């Protein structure tokens, strides 16, 4: 760093000049080291670079089938889930009919277990007519 010292120059200018020279010399130093790398180091750098690229390719090719399988599994799960939901919905639509049917069955059960003679119920119209005609005669 051969700095030109001029006694009358302002300190700040000199400081800036030294900084510029240091920066320039450092850049030149590193550039010369870049250019002067030995064959063994360059070879290892080349190997490292190739390994990084190949490793990425290998990972990509290993992941692709797995990604496809996961996507397929997700699709199947979705379809199955949708079908199950539809079945559940259908069941809920049928349920009110079943409830009605159950109510009717209960009514029938009451009839069957009541003390009233079934024959009376079957011929209820006849007995109503008979009762009304008796009232008229009376």
């Amino acid at each position, binding site marked *: 760093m051969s700095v030109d010292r001029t006694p009358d120059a302002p300190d700040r200018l000199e400081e800036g000049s030294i900084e510029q020279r240091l920066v320039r010399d450092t850049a030149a130093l590193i550039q010369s080291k870049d250019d002067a790398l030995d064959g063994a180091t*360059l070879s290892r750098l080349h190997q490292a*670079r190739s390994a990084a690229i190949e490793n990425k390719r290998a990972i990509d090719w290993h992941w692709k089938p797995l990604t496809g399988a996961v996507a397929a599994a997700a699709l199947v799960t979705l379809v199955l889930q949708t079908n199950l939901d539809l079945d559940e919905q259908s069941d809920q639509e049928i349920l009110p009919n079943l409830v009605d049917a159950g109510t009717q069955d209960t009514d029938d059960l009451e009839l069957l277990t009541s003390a009233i003679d079934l024959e009376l119920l079957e011929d209820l119209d006849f007995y109503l007519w008979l009762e009304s005609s008796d009232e008229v005669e009376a």
Partner: protein
Amino acid sequence: MRNVQAQVTLAGSMDEFLASQERRAFNMALMATGNRDDALEIVQDAMFKLVQKYSNKEPASWGPLFTRILQNRIKNWYRRQSLTRRWFGRGATENVEQNERDAAAETSVELPDAFAHSTPATEAQQQRFMNALEAALRDLPLRQQQVFLLRAVQGLDVGETAAAMSCSAGSVKTHYSRALQKLKLQLAEYS
């Protein structure tokens, strides 16, 4: 088919990018570690990380990303070394110092082309200066050294340097200023 073609192109351009960066990255790491094998390992790790995580990013962003990854790897190396020195004491320190001396011997500085036409006396003086400059750069604390190199050699501005080193712009300015002061002090006899 188009995907495969795109991958091949991407791999090709990534390969070219890394090829353009590897020497400088190695010398930055070597300056920090003082050890050729450690520097190579750091560069290899940085390459793997960039390719695996960021090869799908825009090629324009690879430079800043690679610089940042490299700096993180250097920082991690430094932390490991500090721990080793703390736990294993002087023996480990001696090994590291020996490695540093070996690295300095392995990478003796050759004068840049700018000095090609100088006289033998001037050339010898410049050679001594370049060796002293390299020693002074090696002696800088890691953060100061890397900030100075990123700014002086890589040509990064304050913001870019701060992003690469995961620190504030204020820290970059402080480290740079301190590095400059130390270099001036150590190289005063060459002024």
